[in-house]
Every structure is written in C-alpha cells, then in structure tokens.
C-alpha cells in the first residue's frame, strides 16, 4: 500500500469520529504547549543571564592573570616577553595590556580636583582590542591622554566647606551644582603625584592633554575615573618618585622595602592583560593554548559554559515535567486508538481476509496515532508561541503593578528557540506512536473468522 493511500485511509477513518479525534488532538496540543512554555521559561532565563554576562565584556576576550607554572627564578607576572608571545599566537587579534600606577593620584583642572586611576596603555593595542571613545580621538603625542567617561563628573572644588556626603550624589558622582561647567576634552589637566623624599612629602604635577573621552561603561553602577597615559609620562613620574611605577614611599618603611621599590621595574610587568581572539569560535582554542603555555586565564566562554550547564540541568528538569503532561495526553491517544481498533475490527478482518498484510495494518494504526501526535504538536506549538508572547507582554505590566518599577529594557521571560518546537513535535509524534503501538498490535492479531462472523 502506498504511503499516500495509507495517509488518505487514516484521514478517512478519522473523519468518522471527528469529535473524539478532536478532543485527543486538543489534549495532545495542551500537553505540548505546556511542555514548550515550561521549557521556554528556562530558555528565556538563560538567554537573559547570558546576555547579562556578555553585556560589558567582549565575548572574544581572554583575561590573563599570570603564569601558573614557572621555572625557577621566574616571576608569575606578565612581562613584555609574555605579551610578545601572546601576540605571536594563533587566533590572536590583539593584546590589551596595562601598567597601573602604584600611587594615589589626583587630577587637577583649574580649582577642581578629584581622585583617578592612572594606567599606562599602548594606545594602538587598545584600539585593536576594541576600545571605543564617546568623543575625541586616540592620543598621538606622548603627553596626550584618554580619560574615563565620568572623570569630569568626579572633580570638585576642594576649598568648599561641604562634606563629601553633600558633594556626591547617591551614584557616587559630584552633584550637578558642584560640577565643572565644561568638559575636559581638549583641556590640559594635571596629574598630581606625592612622594616622601628625605624627611618630607613633596608634590609634583604632570600636565597632560585630554584628547579623547572613553565610552560609558555598560553597567549603570560602574564609574570610570580612568586616565590612560603613555609610557613616557610614566617615565617622568618615575623620575620624580624614584621608584618603579611611581610607587609611594612611606616614612615607616624599612630600608630593604624602599630598596626593592627603587630597584624593580627593570623589566615592565603588566596587569589587566586581555588577549583578544579573532572570533568567538577561536576563544576556546585560544584559551586552551594559553592554559597549555602555563598561564592563568579567564574567559567569558568559560563562565558561559558553567551557566549553560546549570541551565541545561534546569531545562531538562522542566522538559521532564512537561513530558509528564504529554504522557498524560498519550493515555488519551491510547484510548482513542484502542476504540478505533475495536470499532474497525470488522473492517480489519475484511482487509486481512482479502490479502491485507499485518505489517500494513499495523503501520496504518501507527500512522494514525502519529498523525494525532503531529496535529497535536502543531496546534500545541502555535498555542505555546501565543502564550509566550502573552507572558512577555504581561510581565512588564505585572512588575509595574506589583513592584511599582518600570523596566528599562524588555525582559524576555519566555523564549522558544525553533529547535525546542521541533524537539516537542518529535517528542509528541514519538509518544503518540508509542501509545498507538499496543492498539496497532491488537489490530494485526484480529482473528479473520471472528471478525467476519462479527463476534468480536
């Protein structure tokens, strides 16, 4: 019997008892929709968290903390040699590396001043690594610098008698009325460095020109008070402090400590080293290569892997719960198919009597139950998508009503990836066919003579 004829045959059979078939399809559809919606919450939550993780960090970034395995006498810190090694590695697009100033510094502009974090960067590497500016340009001259997005909002006049609590707002920025009137772009600022020399504290300022302002950090709560300087400015600072990286000396320091601070720095060591891969697919390989080379690293993909494992477990749990709903629907399918076999006993007997093959008869009933599963899954997927859209539309309204908060960005609580719908369709057809297995077997075992005598 051709497949087309089998299909036509089952459609004709199903038409005989439309309401029963409809109810069975409905039960399967509800089971399917329940499964998909339940799992979609897991997918939605995962998507939300993954997006959150990736929000402020480039997915292609691999952070290197230091060397894990060292030969004797080797420092665990990252040196120029290591940076060169990274740059020569396969799949590496750029290497971002910074040297942090080891002293507390203030930035001065006119009467305004405020604390800042000074780092020495290689501007070319930073540009390649994806450093973006909100205004201005990348530095070209030695005394040109980049500043953090919030730096001008952190400077205030020290002479005012207000306490810090009065000057700063709840976000940690200087209140509007205490701020400068103009931005720092294209202005000359001074970096103030203090050092204990002889028996007293000496202060020196280093004028630099602001040529660019960095992009606003991705997170609301992050405040960027950075100043990115060139290595030549660092050399000037070091010349003043007499220590490596401008380290501050204290009156209570022992001599050997002072000597160490003064003598190190022959070979630069870098902090905040990020190796940038060409694309996301290369991150894993690059991470492995770096680990193999003995470096301690961290990449977002590693964190994502862990998050994905946790969510895989959650999703499996949700799918199992959803599958129970589908199994309940399968009882309905079993019942419908058993009834169909009983009702069609005579027809099956006639078919067998005139040469109907048991395999063909079994396949007809299996197809019928599979068809119910397919229809149920199809309707279920449509229902699930509608419910999912409904949930995502209603959630912000509920949050607004209950918590009296407006969401800045849309939270997608329910997310149905296409493959989830496909898995559910396959699961539904599978479960339906399993339910139809016994009735189909029963159909093939119908005794021809009993069926023809109509005494079954």
């Amino acid at each position: 019997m051709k497949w087309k004829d089998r299909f036509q045959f089952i459609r004709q059979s199903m038409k005989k008892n439309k309401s029963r078939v409809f109810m069975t399809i409905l039960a399967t559809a509800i089971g399917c929709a329940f499964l998909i919606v339940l799992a979609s919450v897991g997918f939605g939550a995962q998507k939300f968290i993954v997006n959150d993780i990736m929000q402020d960090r480039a997915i292609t970034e691999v952070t290197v903390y230091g060397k894990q395995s060292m030969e004797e006498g080797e420092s665990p810190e990252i040196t120029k040699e290591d940076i060169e090694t990274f740059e020569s590695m396969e799949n590496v697009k750029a290497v971002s590396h910074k040297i942090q100033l080891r002293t507390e510094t203030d930035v001065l502009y006119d009467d305004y001043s405020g604390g800042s974090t000074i780092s020495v960067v290689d501007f070319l590497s930073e540009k390649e690594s994806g450093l973006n500016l909100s205004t201005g340009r990348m530095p070209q001259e030695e005394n040109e610098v980049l500043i953090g997005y919030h730096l001008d909002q952190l400077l205030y006049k020290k002479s005012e008698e207000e306490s810090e609590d009065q000057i700063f707002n709840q976000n940690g920025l200087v209140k509007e009325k205490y701020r400068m009137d103009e931005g720092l772009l294209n202005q000359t600022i001074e970096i103030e460095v203090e050092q204990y020399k002889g028996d007293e504290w000496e202060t020196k300022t280093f004028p630099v020109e602001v040529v660019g302002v960095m992009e606003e950090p991705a997170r609301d709560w992050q405040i960027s008070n950075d100043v990115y300087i060139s290595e030549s400015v660092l050399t000037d600072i070091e010349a003043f402090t007499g220590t490596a990286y401008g380290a501050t000396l204290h009156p209570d320091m022992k001599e050997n400590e002072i000597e160490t601070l003064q003598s190190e720095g022959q070979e630069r060591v870098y902090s905040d080293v990020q190796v940038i891969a060409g694309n996301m697919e290369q991150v894993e390989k690059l991470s492995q290569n770096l680990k193999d080379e003995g470096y301690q690293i961290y990449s977002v993909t590693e964190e994502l892997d862990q998050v994905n494992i946790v969510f895989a477990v959650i999703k499996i749990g949700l799918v199992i719960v959803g599958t129970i709903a589908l199994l309940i629907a399968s009882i309905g399918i079993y019942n419908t198919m058993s009834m169909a076999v009983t009702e069609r006993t005579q027809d099956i007997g006639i078919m067998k009597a005139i040469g109907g093959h048991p395999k063909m008869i079994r396949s007809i009933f299996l197809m019928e139950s599979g068809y119910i599963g397919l229809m149920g899954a199809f309707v279920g997927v449509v229902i699930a998508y509608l419910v999912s859209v409904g949930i995502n539309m209603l959630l912000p309204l509920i949050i607004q009503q209950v918590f009296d908060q407006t969401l800045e960005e849309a939270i997608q609580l329910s997310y149905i990836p296409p493959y989830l719908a496909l898995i559910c369709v396959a699961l539904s057809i599978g479960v339906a066919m399993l339910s139809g297995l016994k009735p189909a077997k029963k159909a093939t075992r119908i005794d021809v003579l009993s069926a023809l005598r109509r005494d079954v």
Partner: protein
Amino acid sequence: MIKVEKLSHSFFVGKKNNRQEVSVLKDINLEVKEGEIVSIVGRSGSGKSTLLNLMSGYIKPTEGDIFIADERVTDYKESAWAEFRANHLGFIFQSFQLIPSMTAYQNIELPLVMKGVSEKEREKRVNEMLDKVGLKAFRDHYPSELSGGQQQRVSVARALIVQPPIILADEPTGSLDQETEKELLDFIQKLNKEENITFVIITHDEEVARIAERTIRLEDGRLAADREVAFR
C-alpha cells in the same frame, strides 16, 4: 490448481481437566483442476466451511497438506498467507463482507490499494469492473444503499479486481433471492468460461451445484462423494 492431501482438522472444547477433541475434518483428499467449478456440498456441520477456511489460510490444519498453485501453503505464516491471498485468491462471502464506510467504488478498489497499484491504473480497472458487473451507476453508493444482489456483485467485483486464478466462494447465494441467485450463478459460469477462473463454491443448496463441473459431498467431516456432472 488446488490439492488437498490427508487433511484433518480438529479443535478442543471444555476446560483443562475435561478437554475433548472435536474432529471437524478427517482425512480429506481432493484435487481441483485449473478452470474447474467445484461445488462442495453437505449439511450444516459437515465441515465444508472448515475446508474452505483451511484453503483460505484462515485456520491451520491439524494434519495433512494443502497445495495451491503449485505452492505448499500448509505451514505458511500469517504474513506469507496475506501475500498469497492478495496474489492468488479471490473471495466471495455469504454476507458480502463489504466495508460499510466505503463506497462501492472504494470497496472494489481496496485490494488494488493494498497491493500498491497506482491511482491511475486503479481508476481504469475499477471502472471497467463496475461496467462488467453492471454497477456503473452505483459507484458512489455505500453498501447500505445497495440491494443484496448489488452488494454481492460488488463483492464479486472486489474478488475479481486483482485477476486471481482461483475464487473461493462461501455460500455466495445464501443471502440472495432466486432471481438474483440465478444472475450471479450465470455470471460465475461466464467468468469461468471466458477467463478460465477456477471456482470452489461452498453451498448447502443443491441448486447452486448445477453450475459445477464437479460436486464434492462431505458428511460428518469425511469425503462422502466426488462426482463429475456430465451435463451442465
């Protein structure tokens, strides 16, 4: 065409401790030649339907052998019988055995559908067959909308549609009036002459046997007589 050797069939009745064997057919030997019309007659309970059921593969013999179209079918499994029936045998039943939810056309078409014949070929053959049995005007009628004679003609058409060399008929005129019975018997005779189809007809009606070339009589499960009819 059909050869039956030392065929016996019995079954058990009663509970485990008190089982009794009931013998329905005992040591039957007969042969049906190609193109013959053979009638098997006998009173109720003589074993004639059992003999036909054995030849159809609906039940298995206790002893003996059955050969049909040079094939030993005695030990055929269900699936092998299904294939054999589809290719070699046509069936006509007393109560027509039409599928009530199918039209006359669909009932006749069913064996071809099960054999996987193309839709175009099916349409051609079924229309020809409807014409042959005089039911062209009733092609879309359901069995419940047809008379007994018309239903039996649909049944005959269904048996003939796969062009089997053998047709097994179990009381084919049992549900028909005299006039319709005569029509059917004439049609069977015509088919036998024109298409050389072998017929084995079970009947308790001696009148039906008038079209047969041979009449086999069964009595209490034994072959009581096997005689050729000189004039038909």
